[in-house]
């Protein structure tokens, strides 16, 4: 079992890394889809079936399609991107590496307690549904507001242009 985890982990990291270094946007998108699938596989290993499915549907399905659509729509698929010059890349590499080292250094002292507080089937649909509509009802409702805001925003931003009427503001 542990071998599967490590293989998946390695593949996930490689796929994510490929997203970062692919110069072709479409290729990036496809690697990102792969990353999401691999993460979903991890979820299944962790007995979080519901989230695994949602991950595939929402991310790999909806979000990535959006990305692809926009790339096609803006006709960017042929543009090979020039990366930053070496200075920023080096700076980015060093700072990201630094943060990684710091995290690594502090893992040693970390006491990650895994005391069980509930049951291990909490990732199944019925369990999630139960707590979602009982304990987390309020954020659930708030989430709907979030979608409403996003929807209005999108409509507002990409509404068809219209000339302002001649009536100027009362100064």
């Amino acid at each position, binding site marked *: 079992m542990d071998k599967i*985890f490590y293989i998946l982990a390695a593949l996930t990291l490689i796929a*994510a890394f490929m997203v970062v270094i692919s110069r072709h*946007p479409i290729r990036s998108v496809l690697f990102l889809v792969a990353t999401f699938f691999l993460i979903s596989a991890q979820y299944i290993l962790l007995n979080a079936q519901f989230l695994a499915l949602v991950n595939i549907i929402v*991310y790999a399905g909806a979000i990535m399609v959006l990305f692809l659509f926009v790339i096609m729509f803006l006709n960017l698929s042929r543009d090979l991107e020039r990366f930053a010059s070496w200075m920023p890349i080096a700076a980015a590499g060093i700072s990201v590496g630094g943060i990684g080292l710091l995290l690594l250094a502090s893992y040693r002292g970390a006491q990650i307690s895994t005391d069980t*507080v509930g049951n291990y089937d*909490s990732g199944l649909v019925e369990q*999630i549904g139960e707590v979602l509509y009982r*304990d987390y009802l309020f954020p659930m409702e708030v989430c709907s507001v979030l979608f409403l805001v*996003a929807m209005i925003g999108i409509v507002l931003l990409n509404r068809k242009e219209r000339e302002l009427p001649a009536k100027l503001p009362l100064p």
Partner: protein
Amino acid sequence: MNHIPEIIRTIPLSHYVALSSALFLIGLLGVLIRKNIIIVFMCIEIMLNAVNLLMVAAASYRGDSAGQVMVLFTMAVAAAEVSVGLAIIVMIYKNLKTTNIDLFDQMKG
């Protein structure tokens, strides 16, 4: 029904923490070095996913559902963000005809 998944018995949680940190850092690197705004945005999605993985793992290891619900909301947030973000990108592309992050520098100083 309530059986402990095998992976939890064999792999310590800290490995998941390490994995998701690494994933997060890769996303961070991508954000910093990519020039195409859409790819930058995709790298932010990788960062969010890294956190999701971390939270799902932590939730599963404890049998706690809070983390899983949080991940559900994070996905919702990501979806909303992506839609608004792409709308902004499309809007700005209509005006400026570029997606290169460094060409948006009218305002500075």
